[in-house]
C-alpha cells in the first residue's frame, strides 16, 4: 500500500474542505465588451482566466437567468484545478485555451481577447459545432470536456438554483398544473 498518497482517513478528515471562489479583479473593456481579468488565479494566468470567463459566458450567457460569470464558474474552476483535476485534465484544459487562441489567430489574425464580441461568439459557436460533429479530434475531446465542466459548475451553483430545496418533504409523482401552482404558492396538498 506504499503508493497510496491520500489515505482513506486523511481523505475523510479533509472532507469538509470547500472549493474557495475568490473574486478576481477585473475591468470591462468597453470597445469589445470583454471582461478582462487583471490578476492570476491559483492555477490559471490572468490571460487564461480572461479567455475562460468569456468562453463560459458565451456558453451560458446572462439572460433573465444568471450567466456563467454570475455563478462564478471560472473562479470555481480555477480552484478545482488544484483540488480535483488530475495531470491529464490540467493539461487538457490549458491546451484548450491555447487552441482557442490559435483558432482566433488563424481565423482573424488577432488574439482572442482583441476580437469584437460578435466574432468571439461566432468563433466559439463554430468550434462547438465542429467539436460535436466530429468527435475524433483532440480539440473536440478537449473542448467537450471543458464545456462539460463549465456546465457542471454552473448547474451545481447556488445562483443557478434559486428554488433549490434541500428538504422538499414530500413527493408527488403526477401533478396537474393547478396543483403545482398551488404548491409553489405555499399550499400543502
Amino acid at each position, binding site marked *: *500500500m506504499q*503508493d*497510496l*498518497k*491520500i489515505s*482513506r*482517513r486523511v*481523505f*475523510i478528515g479533509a*472532507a*469538509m*474542505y*470547500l*472549493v474557495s471562489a475568490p473574486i478576481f479583479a477585473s475591468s470591462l473593456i468597453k470597445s469589445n465588451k470583454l471582461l478582462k481579468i487583471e490578476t492570476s488565479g491559483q492555477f490559471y494566468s490572468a490571460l487564461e482566466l480572461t479567455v475562460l470567463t468569456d468562453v463560459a459566458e458565451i456558453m451560458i450567457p446572462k439572460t433573465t437567468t444568471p450567466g456563467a460569470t454570475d455563478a462564478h464558474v471560472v473562479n*470555481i474552476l480555477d480552484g*478545482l484545478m488544484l*483540488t*480535483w*483535476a*488530475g*495531470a*491529464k*485534465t490540467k493539461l487538457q484544459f490549458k491546451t484548450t485555451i491555447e487552441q482557442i487562441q490559435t483558432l482566433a489567430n488563424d481565423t482573424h489574425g488577432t488574439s482572442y481577447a482583441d476580437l469584437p464580441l460578435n466574432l468571439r461568439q461566432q468563433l466559439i459557436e463554430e468550434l462547438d459545432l465542429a467539436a460535436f460533429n466530429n468527435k475524433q479530434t483532440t480539440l473536440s475531446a478537449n473542448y467537450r470536456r471543458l464545456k462539460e465542466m463549465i456546465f*457542471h*459548475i454552473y*448547474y*451545481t*451553483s*447556488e445562483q443557478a*438554483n434559486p428554488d*433549490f430545496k*434541500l*428538504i*422538499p*418533504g*414530500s*413527493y*408527488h*409523482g*403526477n401533478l396537474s398544473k393547478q396543483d403545482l401552482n398551488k404548491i409553489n404558492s405555499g399550499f400543502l396538498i
Partner: protein
Amino acid sequence: MKQGYDVIVVGSGMTGGWAAKEFCEKGFKTLVIERGRHLDHPSTEYKDMQAPWQLENRGLASEIYDEQGRYRMLKTKKKKLKTESIQFFADEKEYPYSYPEDRPFMWTRGYHLGGRSLTWARVSLRFGPKDFEANAKDGHGIPWPIGYDDLAPWYDYVETFAGISGNNDGLPDQPAGVYQKPWDMSCAEEFVSQNIAKNLKDRHMIIGRTANMTEPTEVQTNLGRTKCQARSYCERGCTFGGYFSALAATLPAAKNTGNLTIVTDAIASHIDYDEKTGKALGC
C-alpha cells in the same frame, strides 16, 4: 479485567445490526466487533444536508484516485466517483481481494459501522412461494428446507420494524407484505404501467417496495427516525433516518437495551470453535 459476553457479533452491517438488536432485546450481553471506523448517527460523514454548491469539489472526487488506479470497481459501477458517497465504499487497492482470472467478481464493500446498510439501494422484495420450490422442481442446486409460509411471519417482522413502503399488488410472485403507503408513480410511469396492463396480461409494472419510510410508526419515531423527505440523497447517509440502516434503526434499538457494546477498528481474525459442543467459544 476480562469482560465476558453472551454473544459476539462480527460485523455491524445489515446482518450484524439485526443480530445485535435481536440478542440485546432478548437480554443477552452482546459485543459487536466492527473492522471499520465508528460512525455516529447522524454522522458528520453524511452529506445529505449539503446543497450541490456545498459539496466538496462540487461533488466530484479527486482525479488523483483515477491516476492511482483506485476505486476501479466503484468507478466501473457508478461511472463517476462522488465526494458525497465515496467515503462509504472500500477501495480494493487499499483492501485487495482475489478471484480466479476467468471468473472476476465485483465485490462492493463498506468498511465502517453500519456496513453496506448505508449504501444499499433499499429495494425490499420478498421471495415468493415459487422461489422456494424452484430448486426441487428443476433439479438445480439443493431444495430449500423451508417454504414461503415458514418465512412469511419473519418477513412481516422485519418489514414492520424496518419500515417498507409499497403496494400489495395481488401478485403471487410478489407476495403481500406489511407496507407503509407506496410512493406515487410519475405520470410517465403511470402511463406505461396502464398500457402494459392493457396489452400484456402476464406482465406487471408496479411501484417499488423500498425501505424509505412514508408513514413511520411510533417504534420508528422513538428511535429518532422520521419519514423520508423525498430527496434521493440516500447514498450520502440520511440525517432523518428516513431509510432503513443499521446506524439509524437496529443498532440504536440494540443500544437502548443497555446490553450492547460496540468495538470498532477491530478485525475478527478467527473464531474459536469447540469441537465437543460444536459451538463457537469466541473470536
